[in-house]
């Protein structure tokens, strides 16, 4: 290859993205400085009914104007955006919305109720095969939503359920431009050019996307919405940097302004050496647990499961695995799968089982497990209490935790073999229940539906979320309300009539303040049964340059409400 060819390559390479920033666009309000965020993965598709990656959701939050906005304070609080008001019918099955009439797409076309209907039509269409289809599972066909006129619409549900969840279901899909996508082939929607260069109706617009490199957002100067939604920054740039060490160097050099998931061992050094950085704790969206497969005879006895939990010193593991150099712990004990962030629902009264080796041994003995042959491993009917603890690779924290657990259980006379599998194999084995014990984790949702994890794994009976709960006996028939459901995410085959009853009761209770005690009782029931050894909820540490003000870093998102972010005039770093 000769030099001219190389120059041509230099010109082509890295420039295969969409159009660049509109440098000549006339500013319609004052903006300053640029926010550079490091993300691990690139955006994929910006049509919210088919989008997948985390970067997609961050960008969608900035370029679409939400039907109902949200903030988080112990639970999801809904605040007006495109919808100025919303009301439930007396029986809780219809939500009526009134929309603003001053929001337009970039091309000047008004955003109307029909654009919202169009979004939900796409979600419902089997040709699209949207992964968001669960949002319309309780929708009445043809009335989700029912458009009354351009600014009024109604969402009709088959039955009333938790109102926070209902509100989330009607605001999860933003209005989509029917005038642009209406004729699109739905079966190949993911390939539509709109997914890579969408039209904005929100505060920002997508100015450029260079695959695998960076995504540039700039203010949508044609934004017609409320003034408080106008961006205060010139640009937001998301840089795709897959490697942690590289992101850390870029952060320390000051070439990125925000980095997610700073490792705990780096926190103290960053705080000391880089006073310009603010280190924000964001909890608690993810947890770790040990699952005891109750299809396996070893773990069927609750005494054994409680003994195994008591043999583990979870606090000590946290002090070793979730702690910065100065000893600050970035997590808290977990007693269930409902995040403590949902403070009205989380049961704070549950006391974690204490670490007590003697009691653990006594419980095992009560369950018939004693060391009869003196080899250090307890046994019963000739079988030793020995099993394989499986975890996924690529997670150093879990790899270390597995070794701690092996050591603790050895002291209680339990033999643990550790197996690390590729993530795909590991999660498939969990779903197929092809494992003995597994060290894994959950990311927590912000509304409560424990049925997916804790409802008896195969249920033939009344659909807990179906319309008519009067159906007498479902054991022999399968009808609209009587279904067979498999809860394949109930990895441990937890089966408790009491828990099933509480789940069904909770899901049928629309008012959150009334369902909270039910969920708290459910957490107590599950904790007593110890289907998992619940380990901990983890904080995420976000490092952000302190020149930014009004930053929304909370349990909802690592960088939400980008339109609020601003930089004082005397602290501006980038002029453009």
């Amino acid at each position, binding site marked *: *290859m000769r030099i001219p060819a*190389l*120059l041509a*390559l*230099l*010109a*082509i*390479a*890295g420039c*295969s993205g969409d159009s*660049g*920033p509109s440098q000549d666009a006339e500013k319609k309000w004052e903006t300053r400085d*640029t926010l*550079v965020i490091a993300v691990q993965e690139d955006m*994929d*598709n910006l049509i919210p009914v*088919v989008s997948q990656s985390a970067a997609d959701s961050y960008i969608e939050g900035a370029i679409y104007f939400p039907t109902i906005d949200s903030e988080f304070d112990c639970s999801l609080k809904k605040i007006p955006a495109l919808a100025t008001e919303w009301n439930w019918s007396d029986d809780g099955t219809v939500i009526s919305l009134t929309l603003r009439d001053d929001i337009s797409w970039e091309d000047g076309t008004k955003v109307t109720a029909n654009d919202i209907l169009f979004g939900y039509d796409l979600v419902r269409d*089997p*040709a699209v*095969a949207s*992964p968001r*289809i*669960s949002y319309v*599972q309780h929708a009445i066909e043809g009335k989700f939503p029912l458009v009354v006129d351009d600014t009024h619409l109604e969402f009709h549900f088959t039955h009333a359920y938790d109102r926070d969840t209902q509100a989330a279901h009607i605001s999860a899909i933003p209005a989509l431009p029917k005038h642009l996508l209406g004729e699109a082939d739905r*079966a190949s929607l*993911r*390939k539509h050019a709109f*997914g890579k260069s969408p039209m904005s109706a929100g505060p920002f617009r997508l100015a450029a996307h*260079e*695959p*695998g*490199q*960076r995504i*540039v957002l700039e203010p949508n100067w044609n934004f017609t919405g409320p003034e408080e939604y106008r961006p205060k920054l010139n*640009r937001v*740039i998301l*840089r*795709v*940097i*897959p*490697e942690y*060490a*590289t992101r850390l*160097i*870029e952060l*320390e*050099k000051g*070439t990125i302004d925000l980095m997610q998931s700073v490792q705990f061992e780096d926190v103290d050094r960053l705080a000391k050496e880089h006073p310009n950085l603010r280190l924000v704790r964001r909890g608690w969206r993810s947890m770790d647990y040990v699952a005891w497969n109750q299809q396996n005879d070893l773990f069927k006895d609750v005494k054994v499961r409680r003994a195994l939990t008591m043999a583990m010193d979870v606090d000590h593991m946290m002090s070793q695995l979730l702690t910065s150099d100065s000893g600050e712990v970035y997590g808290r004990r977990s007693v269930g799968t409902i995040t403590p962030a949902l403070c009205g629902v989380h049961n704070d009264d549950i006391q974690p089982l204490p670490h007590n080796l003697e009691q653990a041994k006594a419980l095992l003995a009560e369950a018939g497990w004693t060391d009869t042959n003196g080899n250090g491993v307890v046994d019963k009917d000739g079988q030793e209490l020995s099993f394989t603890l499986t975890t996924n690779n690529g997670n150093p924290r879990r790899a270390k935790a597995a070794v701690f657990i092996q050591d603790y259980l050895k002291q209680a006379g339990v033999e643990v073999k550790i197996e690390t599998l590729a993530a*795909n*194999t590991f*999660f*498939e084995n969990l779903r197929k229940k092809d494992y003995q014990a597994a060290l894994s984790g959950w990311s927590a949702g912000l509304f409560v*539906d424990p049925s*997916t*994890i804790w409802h008896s794994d195969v249920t033939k009976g009344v659909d807990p979320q179906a319309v008519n709960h009067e159906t007498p006996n479902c054991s022999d028939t399968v009808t609209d309300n009587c279904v067979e*459901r*498999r809860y394949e*995410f109930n990895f441990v085959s937890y089966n408790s009539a009491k828990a099933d009853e509480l789940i069904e009761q909770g899901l049928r209770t629309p008012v959150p303040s009334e369902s909270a005690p039910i969920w708290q009782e459910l957490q107590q029931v599950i904790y007593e049964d110890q289907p998992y050894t619940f380990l901990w909820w983890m904080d995420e540490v976000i490092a952000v340059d302190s020149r930014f003000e009004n930053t929304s870093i909370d349990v909802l998102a690592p960088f939400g409400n980008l339109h609020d972010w601003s930089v004082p005039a005397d602290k501006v770093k*980038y002029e*453009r």
Partner: protein
Amino acid sequence: MFKYLLRKLLLVLPLLIGVVTLVFFLIELSPGDVADKFFTPETTPEVRQQIIAKYGLDKPAWFRYLLLIKNLAVLEFGTSIAHGRDVTTLIWEYLPNTLLLSSVTLLVIYPVGIALGTFQGVRQGSLFDSTASVVSLFFYSMPSFWLALMLQLYFSYRFDLLPTSGMHDPVEYDYMTRPEQIVDTLKHIILPGVAMGVASAAGAARYMRSSILEVIRQDFVRTARAKGLPESTVIRKHVIRNAMLPIVTLLGLSLPFLFSGSVLIEIVFAWPGMGRLIVNSIFSQDTPVVIGCFFVFTLMVVIGNLIADISYALVDPRIKYD
């Protein structure tokens, strides 16, 4: 020569089918599938089935395999399931970036290695030769990701001489003139180029040194010296030219590397190249992309081999292919 080339080209077909079959069934045998990324605990079994059917994953493996072969016959790579886009488009997005990085590496680093090896060979046993041998062995044995991190730490973070990662300045690039943009991109190539090329350069130096040592002892070199040619002419015209023969083969065999990129370097330097594309696709079991990439790589290996064979014949008149 023509017959030889024809025979080689005819061998491409079974080779391509073999590679595609192997890759397809390897992905097929690994647990899980690409549709997994669409599922959450909220996904009902019906939706799961709908999604699986949409991407044709409900069909048996042999059926999908035959469909794949049929499509490949007309060079139709299909649509990436994970990205929902044409595989050809995806490859065209990432390929220029890889080509740029690897061609700079080949163009700059290889000549350095060859020059180093030549000097070592000519000055065998000197202090320079011994030092260069130790240094090249050191770099030859060094894991490239570690070298990459060290380069970032010292040249970017400690001394702030060069950018840490990416292909260009994320903030200022849009406001630069075209020449400034080219300079900026070149600055961003240096560290990944060095990290990727140092081991190859060290390897080329070792090859070149031993090749020079072999040639320099030949009778025709002694003859050239005996007839009174200046030493520089002997080295330039007789030694280097002949010693280059194995290096030409080495360069031909390096052609596939031009297209495949280096996964570790691309990840550490956030360089959006083919290596990253293919590894991500393997992890997400995105069969069409993996097959598309391997198809291109296999073709490149064959073409690289052919080029090596042809250039070998061209530079060495003693070699003839029948």
